[in-house]
């Protein structure tokens, strides 16, 4: 009866075992369902990719051969004499030949092109195709500038299964998981081997994780090395293997694995890592480059090729050796790859390739129309307006300018915006001197007093009152305004002097405060506030007299919008950073078409713009002007806020509006005028842009009269101080007997010269 006595115990054991097995099964099943649900969901989690505007090539374009080469290098094109593969180019004398890349997604693709571009005198002289036929205009594949990744900072660029180089997958198996094709998610032989090593070493040192387990860890788990986590990981890996094919798991791995850190941005997947380290798409990588990426799998921080090049090189060579051992590559190929340098793009390229400020603007524009989940997960393609060359110029000029001006001042910060006025497209945006980092975007969010930048609006309001032309005179004399609260306000001029009776033209060009306040009070502060309100800023302006001298806080983006409207002849165009959005199948979801709104009479805007040209020729913009080529005609305006806290410069050519701002985040005085601070950076940028003179014609039907800059009398166009202004037929002033400036005394000429030199 021993069996009888034992039976209850056996029954109890059996029942306990059954419950345990049942529990484990339920747990495993639940885990499996959880893993699958998460995997399905995450499998579609693709941040929107954002591309720069494509480079347009056509005869007549201002573009030097070297600038094209720089742009090709930025796109990661390789110099190759045979032009056999996409993304290659060669240079011979004044000719660049290239083989562009296929671009786009789904049904919305552009085919690769073979182009021959001939240069002459800083311009494209001719563009032709492989058969020598002339090409009117051609577009290159656009530069990938980033993605809209979620707040937790994971960024990736999804590679379709057919785009994954087989060398990469074979090498991954060779180095990380040799039995990947046969195991069930875990590899007991590898575990035993690793366990032996770990026991021997007394600590967990060697990993035995399969690629599937690594995938699970990256998807679901923390990276801590505990036995319970390892058990979870194994169960989840088995669950994945039961549900998905090896190919699906491999593509997921290639797109999921963490490979680098870029500040707050975690680089996941080989697609983005390829761009991050080599500036080129994954399919174009060579063997030694693929090996370096695989080397990162074991520790992106430890094997960081930028910070620890020796370790990275050793690990890369180990990868190459293991590939050779498995005969994935021949000994000769191995030796050749091993002899190569790391070949990563430099730190500067990396930093400048993340356009934090501009992407912030893209995100905001997209955010108006798309929920965040869609942008972060639906694999959209966003075609933006960024011009990478213009952006590089803006960043370099701001940094160089700040470096030069910084000594002896509180910490300088700055912002740059470059727009094309006629299209409203933002070509470049710099929101900080720390260009590659997300953070406070001063270009969009720093609200600062604009100082004299407001003055063109005051003069516009005067013209709109129909009581003034720019040839009329105004007293630049001390003025006292009694404010509503009983206090009085007596603004002075920058140089502390008053200049007597001056033309409106000169008062604006030389930025006289007293003349401007007198004019503004005569026209009415309400009228000025109303004019300002038409420029599309999303706020109202209280009509205080101090508004006349720019005691109004605007962001650089607001100011750029105002000046772009002037540059565009009085037609407002809301600034835009995105041209088009395409879904994962290549279907266009949205276009942002050009829309314009007339906000002021073209004749009035034309007149103010002529004064803004005189700002550059004779007024406060003269020092900035002297750093530009003589033949380049520009229009612009300086702005300096009270106590030298903000230095502004806004100005335009035919195709570019450039706005620069300098200040201190804590609002400490920086001791710089708009001309000296922002103006030097502005002219540095304009001098490097491929741009042409501001040459808008007078609007149809405008009556132009030559006016003497100083006296406002009608004069001869050959006189040195003659400026052509639109004047109504009934208002033409009397004609001077001689050129106006001849009648000026030497003393006042000298005084004028000093005033200008001081500004």
């Amino acid at each position: 009866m021993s069996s009888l006595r034992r039976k209850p115990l056996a029954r109890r054991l059996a029942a306990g075992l059954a419950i345990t097995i049942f529990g484990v099964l339920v747990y495993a099943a639940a885990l499996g369902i959880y893993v699958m649900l998460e995997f399905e969901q995450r499998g579609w989690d693709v941040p929107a990719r954002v591309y720069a505007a494509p480079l347009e090539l056509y005869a007549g374009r201002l573009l030097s051969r070297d600038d094209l080469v720089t742009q090709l290098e930025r796109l990661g094109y390789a110099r190759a004499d045979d032009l056999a593969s996409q993304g290659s180019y060669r240079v011979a004398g004044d000719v660049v030949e290239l083989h562009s890349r296929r671009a786009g997604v789904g049904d919305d693709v552009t085919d690769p092109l073979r182009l021959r571009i001939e240069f002459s005198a800083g311009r494209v002289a001719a563009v032709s195709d492989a058969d020598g036929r002339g090409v009117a205009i051609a577009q290159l594949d656009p530069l990938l500038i980033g993605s809209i990744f979620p707040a937790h900072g994971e960024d990736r660029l999804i590679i379709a299964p057919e785009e994954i180089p087989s060398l990469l997958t074979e090498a991954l198996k060779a180095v990380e998981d040799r039995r990947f094709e046969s195991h069930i998610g875990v590899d007991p032989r590898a575990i035993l081997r690793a366990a032996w090593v770990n026991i021997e070493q007394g600590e967990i040192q060697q990993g035995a994780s399969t690629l599937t387990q690594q995938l699970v860890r990256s998807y679901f788990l923390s990276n801590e090395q505990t036995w319970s986590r390892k058990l979870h990981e194994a169960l989840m890996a088995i669950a994945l293997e039961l549900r998905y094919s090896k190919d699906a798991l491999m593509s997921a791995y290639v797109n999921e694995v963490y490979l680098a850190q870029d500040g707050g941005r975690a680089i996941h997947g080989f697609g983005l890592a390829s761009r991050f380290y080599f500036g080129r798409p994954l399919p174009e990588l060579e063997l030694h480059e693929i090996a370096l990426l695989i080397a990162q799998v074991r520790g992106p921080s430890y094997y960081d090729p930028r910070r620890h090049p020796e370790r990275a090189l050793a690990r890369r060579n180990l990868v190459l050796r293991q590939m050779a051992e498995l005969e994935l590559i021949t000994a000769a190929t191995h030796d050749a790859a091993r002899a190569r340098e790391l070949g990563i793009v430099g730190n500067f390229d990396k930093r400048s390739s993340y356009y934090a400020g501009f992407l912030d603007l893209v995100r905001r524009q997209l955010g108006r129309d798309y929920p965040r989940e869609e942008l972060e997960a639906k694999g959209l393609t966003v075609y933006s307006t960024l011009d990478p060359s213009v952006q590089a110029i803006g960043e370099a000029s701001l940094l160089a300018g700040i470096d030069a001006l910084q000594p002896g001042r509180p910490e300088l910060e700055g912002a740059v915006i470059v727009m094309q006025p006629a299209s409203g497209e933002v070509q470049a945006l710099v929101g900080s001197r720390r260009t590659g980092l997300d953070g406070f975007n001063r270009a969009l969010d720093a609200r600062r007093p604009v100082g004299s930048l407001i003055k063109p609006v005051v003069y516009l309001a005067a013209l709109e009152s129909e009581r003034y032309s720019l040839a009329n005179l105004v007293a630049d004399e001390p003025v006292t305004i009694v404010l509503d609260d009983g206090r009085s306000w007596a603004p002075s001029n920058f140089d502390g002097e008053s200049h007597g009776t001056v033309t409106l033209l000169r008062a604006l060009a030389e930025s006289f405060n007293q003349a401007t306040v007198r004019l503004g009070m005569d026209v009415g502060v309400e009228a000025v506030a109303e004019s300002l309100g038409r420029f599309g800023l999303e706020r109202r302006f209280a009509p205080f007299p101090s508004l006349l001298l720019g005691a109004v806080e605007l962001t650089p983006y607001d100011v750029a919008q105002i000046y772009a409207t002037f540059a565009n002849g009085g037609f407002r165009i809301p600034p835009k950073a995105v041209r088009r959005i395409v879904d994962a199948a290549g279907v266009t979801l949205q276009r942002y078409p050009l829309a314009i709104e007339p906000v002021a009479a073209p004749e009035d805007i034309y007149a103010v713009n002529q004064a803004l040209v005189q700002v550059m020729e004779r007024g406060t913009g003269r020092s900035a002007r002297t750093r530009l080529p003589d033949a380049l005609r520009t229009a612009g305006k300086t702005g300096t806020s009270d106590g030298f806290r903000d230095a502004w410069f806004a100005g335009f050519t035919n195709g570019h509006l450039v706005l620069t701002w300098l200040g201190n985040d804590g609002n400490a005085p920086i001791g710089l005028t708009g001309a000296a601070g922002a103006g030097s950076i502005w002219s540095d940028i304009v001098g490097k842009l491929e741009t042409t003179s501001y040459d808008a014609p007078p609007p149809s039907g405008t009556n132009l009269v030559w006016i003497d800059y100083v006296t406002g009398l009608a004069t001869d166009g050959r006189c040195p101080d003659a400026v052509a202004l639109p004047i109504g037929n009934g208002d033409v002033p009397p004609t001077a007997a001689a050129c106006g400036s001849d009648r000026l005394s030497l003393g006042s000429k000298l005084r004028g010269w000093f005033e200008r030199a001081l500004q």
Partner: protein
Amino acid sequence: MRAARVVLAIGLLISSGCSTLGLPPAPAPQPGGGAPAPAERAPVPQTMSATTSLLTAGRAARESGDLDAATAYIERALRIAPNDPRLWIELGEIKLAEGDTAQAEAMGRKALTLTRGDPALERAARRLIVDTS
């Protein structure tokens, strides 16, 4: 329509030279001597064939009813030649075809600031304004 979009996407146009509008007229005479000459950095830009090709393609797309493609061609041309009144007029025609009379009028007014007194272009620009009022 699909074909037009593919051509657009390819982003490559072989010179056609079949433009119906010629070059923009010379600048209107300025008062006095020595007009405020807008000097270029280099000799006359030869961008006309690119602009004209895009204009021709845009017009063809509009006439075939593919207004999205037409818009894309003309906007692309405007980025190259923002002061070419023909492009603003054509964009106005597209807006008219889309039924957006306010934008058509705005484009007409913008074109009028750039015609430099050319009567044919002025008529075309004014038509956009009259048509919509």
